[in-house]
C-alpha cells in the first residue's frame, strides 16, 4: 500500500467515511444507521441480499443520490449537497447495478469507451494508450468494433469496468458487477480488478449478493434489511461467531432433519449430507452434540469442518433477532394424496433437445433425465440456455429438434397434459401482487381446476407447507421476498403436480430465505417423490441438488452428482490447494509464469489445482522464493462446484480454440 500514499492526497488515509447514514424513499426506510470506513487502496465489500440497502448506500457515496441523515465523507469532501458531490466526481468511477445496463447497446465497444472518455475529458493521447492497455487486459481488443448489444454477459461486464476506469479514478464504486455472470467471467473480472487496483492504487467499493465472493475483499460489511449486521475482514467476521460446522450423512434423512431442527438453529440438507452449525462449541463437543440428537439413526461420515461466512451471517441474523428463529419453520403436513412415487420412474427425459432463434442456437442437443424424487439442478450463466430448455419441456416453446417426455407425456403432442401434471415457477414473478396470499392460492387452484370439494383442503395444505399462516390476508406485494417466493412455490404445487420446474427461484433472496426454500424442496422430493428441476446461478446452492447438469453456450458440458463432479475434477486436474502469501498479486504472476496456469486470486489467498500436492508444494516454494515471497500457509481444500464449473468451461474454450486453429 506504499503506492497509495502517493496517489491520495494528505489526510486521506481513508477514502470513504460514512457515519450513521440514513436513507428513506418516501415512507420506506432503505438504510438506517450505517457506518463504515474504507481505507485507501483496499477492496471493500458490501454483501447482502436484494433490498439490503447496498445500492442506496453506494449511490450516496458516489454522489448520485441524496440522503436524509448521517454524514458521508468521500476523498476528504463531505458529500452533503449537489455542489459538494460535483467536486468529487472527477475522482470517482461508478458502475450502477444491472449487467451492461449503463452501456449504450447501439454503440461499439470502442465507441462506448470513447464516449466515457470524452465525458471525463481524458486527453486523446492518454486515452489511446489507456484504451489499448485495458482492452488487452480484458481481452476485448479483437471485438472493439462489435456493438455492445451483441456481447456476452461476461464481455459486457468487462466493458463496463473499462468504461468506469477509463479516467483513472481514485475510487471506484461497483454495484453488483458479478451478478448473473458465469463463474469463469467472474474470476476473470476479479483478477483484472485486483491487478488494476494494485497498479493504480485505486480504492474499490464493490457489492455482491454472493456470500462466497467474500474472500475477494479486504474488508466487508454484511448488510440485511437496511442495516449493517457486522463488518471486518472475512476472518474476523468468522471469528466473531465461534462454533463448528458438523457434516453428517444420516438415514432416514427426513427424520434426522426433524430432530436436528428441534435443537439447532442452523440445519440444512445438502444433497445426502446434513450440515449443522453448533454455535460456541469446539469441533469435538459439536460432533458429540449432534451424535446425541441422532441416537438410534444410521450415521455415516460424521465430521466437523470450518464454518463458512454464510453460516456466520445467518448466526448473526438470528443473534440480532432480525429474523424469526427456526421455530416457525414450515413442515410438510401429511398430504392426503397418493404416496411417494416409485423413484425408479423417469419424470423428465430430454433427448437431443435443440432450439434455434434465427441463426442463434440457444439450446444445442441437450440430453438429460430426472427421476421421481430427484432434485435436478440446471446450472449456467445468463444466456446459457437454461430457461429456453425449461420452456420447451413445459410445452411453452416448440423445439426445433429433439424430443422430451415429462410426467409420462410427450412434450411435442401432449403439452396440454403436461401443463396439468407439472408445477412451474418462473423467473419473472408469477404472482399477482395486488391479490392477497389466499386469493393468489385460490386463483391458481381455479386455473388448475382443483375439484371443488378438495379445494379447501389443498389451499390449507399450501398455507401450511409454505409457512404462510398469519399472512394469509396480506397482499403479495407487501410480503418480504423470501415469503413471496414460498407463496409462488405453493401456488405451483396447489394441483399436486408430480414434476416441478423452478426457474431461478431464489434469485435475490437472503440466505435464510434460500435455506428455508431448499428445506421445502428437499422434503417435497424425499417424502412426496416430486421430481424437481431447478435452475440457479448461485453455485453454492448447486450442492443441494442430487444431480447437476452444467450448461454452457446451449450445451450440457457436465452431468453427474455434485460429489462425482468434484471427484472427476480431482481425478483429472488434481487437488485444490489454497495458498496464503504476503504479496498475493506478485505471487500469482510468479505461479502463472511457473506453469500453474489456473492459479486464481481469492482476496489475499490463491487457489490452484495440483495433481500431486507434495511435488507441487516444493515447486511453489521454489517459485515464490525466487521472487522473494514467503509462503505463509498451504492447505488442501475440497473443490467447490464453482471450481468444477470454471475448469469445465475453460476446457470447452480451449477445445474450441484448438478447433478454430485447425480450421
Amino acid at each position: 500500500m506504499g503506492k497509495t500514499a502517493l496517489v491520495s492526497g494528505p489526510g486521506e488515509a481513508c477514502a470513504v467515511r460514512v457515519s450513521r447514514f440514513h436513507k428513506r424513499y418516501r415512507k420506506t426506510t432503505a438504510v438506517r444507521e450505517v457506518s463504515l470506513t474504507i481505507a485507501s487502496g483496499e477492496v471493500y465489500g458490501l454483501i447482502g441480499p436484494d433490498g439490503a440497502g447496498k445500492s442506496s448506500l453506494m449511490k450516496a457515496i458516489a454522489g448520485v443520490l441524496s440522503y436524509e441523515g448521517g454524514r458521508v465523507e468521500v476523498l476528504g469532501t463531505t458529500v452533503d449537497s449537489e455542489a459538494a458531490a460535483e467536486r468529487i466526481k472527477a475522482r470517482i468511477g461508478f458502475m450502477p447495478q444491472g449487467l451492461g445496463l449503463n452501456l449504450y447497446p447501439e454503440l461499439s465497444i470502442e465507441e462506448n469507451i470513447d464516449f466515457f472518455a470524452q465525458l471525463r475529458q481524458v486527453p486523446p493521447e492518454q486515452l489511446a494508450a489507456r484504451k489499448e492497455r485495458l482492452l488487452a487486459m480484458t481481452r476485448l481488443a479483437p471485438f472493439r468494433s462489435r456493438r455492445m448489444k451483441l456481447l456476452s454477459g461476461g464481455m459486457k461486464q468487462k466493458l463496463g469496468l473499462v468504461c468506469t476506469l477509463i479516467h483513472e479514478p481514485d475510487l471506484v464504486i461497483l454495484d453488483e458487477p458479478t451478478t448473473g455472470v458465469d463463474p469463469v467471467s467472474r474470476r476473470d473480472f476479479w483478477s483484472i480488478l485486483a491487478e488494476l487496483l494494485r497498479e493504480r492504487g485505486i480504492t474499490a467499493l464493490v457489492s455482491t449478493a454472493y456470500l462466497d465472493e467474500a474472500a475477494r475483499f479486504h474488508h466487508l460489511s454484511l448488510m440485511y434489511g437496511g442495516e449493517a449486521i457486522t463488518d471486518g475482514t472475512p476472518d474476523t467476521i468468522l471469528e466473531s461467531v465461534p462454533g463448528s460446522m458438523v457434516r453428517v450423512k444420516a438415514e432416514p434423512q427426513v427424520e434426522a432433519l426433524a430432530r436436528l431442527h428441534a435443537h439447532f438453529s442452523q440445519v440444512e440438507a445438502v444433497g445426502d449430507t446434513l450440515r449443522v452449525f453448533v454455535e460456541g462449541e469446539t469441533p469435538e463437543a459439536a460432533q458429540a452434540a449432534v451424535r446425541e440428537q441422532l441416537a438410534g439413526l444410521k450415521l455415516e461420515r460424521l465430521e466437523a469442518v470450518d464454518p463458512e461466512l454464510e453460516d456466520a451471517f445467518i448466526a448473526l441474523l438470528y443473534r440480532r433477532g432480525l429474523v424469526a428463529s427456526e421455530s416457525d419453520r414450515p413442515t410438510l403436513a401429511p398430504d392426503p394424496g397418493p404416496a411417494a412415487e416409485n423413484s425408479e420412474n423417469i419424470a423428465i427425459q430430454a433427448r437431443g433437445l435443440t432450439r434455434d432463434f434465427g441463426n442463434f442456437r440457444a439450446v444445442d442437443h441437450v440430453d438429460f433425465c430426472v427421476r421421481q424424487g430427484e432434485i435436478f439442478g440446471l446450472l449456467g450463466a445468463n444466456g446459457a440456455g437454461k430457461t429456453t430448455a425449461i420452456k420447451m419441456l413445459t410445452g411453452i416453446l416448440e423445439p426445433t429438434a429433439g424430443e422430451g417426455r415429462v410426467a409420462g407425456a410427450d412434450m411435442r403432442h401432449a403439452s396440454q397434459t403436461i401443463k396439468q401434471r407439472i408445477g412451474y415457477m418462473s423467473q419473472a414473478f408469477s404472482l399477482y401482487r395486488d391479490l392477497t396470499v389466499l386469493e393468489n392460492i385460490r386463483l391458481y387452484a381455479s386455473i388448475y381446476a382443483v375439484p371443488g370439494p378438495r379445494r379447501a383442503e389443498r389451499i390449507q395444505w399450501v398455507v401450511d407447507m409454505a409457512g404462510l399462516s398469519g399472512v394469509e390476508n396480506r397482499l403479495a406485494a407487501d410480503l418480504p421476498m423470501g415469503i413471496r417466493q414460498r407463496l409462488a412455490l405453493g401456488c405451483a404445487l396447489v394441483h399436486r403436480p408430480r414434476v416441478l420446474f423452478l426457474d431461478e427461484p431464489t434469485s435475490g433472496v437472503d440466505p435464510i430465505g434460500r435455506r428455508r426454500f431448499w428445506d421445502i424442496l428437499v422434503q417435497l422430493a424425499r417424502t412426496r417423490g416430486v421430481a424437481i428441476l431447478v435452475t440457479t446461478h448461485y453455485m453454492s446452492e448447486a450442492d443441494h441438488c442430487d444431480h447437476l447438469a452444467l450448461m454452457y453456450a446451449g450445451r450440457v458440458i457436465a452431468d453427474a452428482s455434485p460429489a462425482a463432479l468434484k471427484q472427476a475434477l480431482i481425478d483429472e486436474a488434481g487437488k485444490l490447494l489454497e495458498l496464503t502469501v504476503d504479496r498475493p498479486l506478485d505471487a500469482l504472476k510468479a505461479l502463472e509464469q511457473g506453469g500453474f496456469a489456473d492459479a486464481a486470486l481469492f482476496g489475499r489467498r490463491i487457489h490452484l489445482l495440483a495433481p500431486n500436492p507434495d511435488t507441487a508444494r516444493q515447486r511453489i516454494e521454489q517459485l515464490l522464493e525466487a521472487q522473494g515471497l514467503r509462503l505463509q500457509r498451504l492447505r488442501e481444500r475440497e473443490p467447490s462446484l464453482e471450481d468444477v464449473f470454471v475448469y469445465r468451461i475453460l476446457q470447452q474454450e480451449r477445445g474450441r480454440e484448438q478447433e478454430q486453429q485447425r480450421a
Partner: protein
Amino acid sequence: MNLHRTMAVAWKEMREILRDRLFLIMAFVVPSMILLVLGYGLSLDVENIPFSAVDYDRSALSRDYLHRYIDSRYFDFQGEARDTRELDRLLADSRIRFAIVIPEHFERDLKAGRPVTVQSLIDGVFPYRAQVSKGYVAAINAHFSAERVRDYLILKAGLSPSEAARLVQPIRLETRYLYNQALRSRWSLSAGLIMLVLMVSPPFLTALGVVRERENGSIYNIYASTVTRGEFLLGKLLPYVLISAINILIVWWLAVFLFGAPFKGSLAFFFIASLVYVICTAGIGLLVSLIVRTQAAAALLTMVITFIPAMLYSGLLVPIESMGPETQFEAHLFPALYHLRIVWGSFLKGLGWSVLWGDVLALALYAVVLWTIGYLSFHKRPRQ
C-alpha cells in the same frame, strides 16, 4: 459550459438514434404518417351526401324539384325509394344521410297557388354534417321557390324575366372567399396539421430519449461524471431538435406538393418560427421525462398532453373566437395556437415577421420557460 462534453453527449445520442431502426422510424416516418393519415382522413368538407327520395306526386314539377338535389355536387342520389318505410330503413342502416318526401298533388297545389310542404329527413347523429346538409337543402329549396315566384310574375304580371328576377331577389349577395379561394378544407387542414405534427413528435422523441436513459440506468454515467446538467440537457436534446428541424421541411413539402396547399409566405420565416416552436415543444418532452419513470408512461403522457389539446385548443377544428371565454383563455396558455397562426399566415395569407412577430415571441417565451423549469428540476443527485 464545456462544448466538448456537450458535443460528446450529442454525438453519442445521434449515433444511437441512427442505429436504432425502430427509433429512427419513429423519428422520421411517424410525423409524416400523422400528416398523411389525418390529412386525407380528416376532411371537414361535407360533400357527396348520400340521399334518397319518395315522390308521391310523380309530376313534371315534382321531378324538376327533385332534380335540383340530384344535380347538386353536394348530394349523391341513391335512387328513389318506394315509400317512407323504406326511407326509414335506409336511414337506419346509414345507407343514406337524408331523404326528401314530396307529397301528392305537389304540382297541382303549387299551380293553384297553395302552399306545399316538402318533408326532409336528416340524419342528426353528426350534428355538424346535419347542419351543413340542412343548409344545402334550405338553399336549394329557397332557390326553387324563388323561381316559382319569378315564373308567376312573368306569367301573371307580364314582367320581363330580368325585372321579375329583380323583384324576387332585390338584394344580390356577392361572396369572395379570401386566402382559400376554393374553400378546400384540405388546404387549410394539411397546413394546420403541421402544427399538430410538430406539437406531438418532438416531445415524444425527447421524452423517450431521456427516459430511456433513466430506465436502463445509463443516466448514472451522467450523474456520476463531471458533465454539468446544462451540458447534458443541451447535448441530449440537440439531436432531437435537429431531427425535428428536418421534419419541419419534410411536412412542409408534403403539405405543399402532396396536398397542394398554397404557400404564399417566406420559407425562411416559416422555418425559423417553426424551429422556435419545435424547441418549445421539445421542452414539453423534457418536462414529461422528469415526471415519469418508464418509456411507456412517457409515450402515453406525451400523447395525452400534446395531441388532444393541439386538436381542440389550437383553432384547427373550432375557431378560437367561437369558444367560451374560459376555453379561449386555456387556448392561449397553449403554444399550439400561436404556431397555427404562423402556419396559416405563412401558407394561406403570405404573412411574415411584420404581422406574426408577436406569435414567434410568444413561442420563444414558452421555450425559455419550459427549458428553465426543465433545467432547474433536473438533478444529478436526486432523491431516488
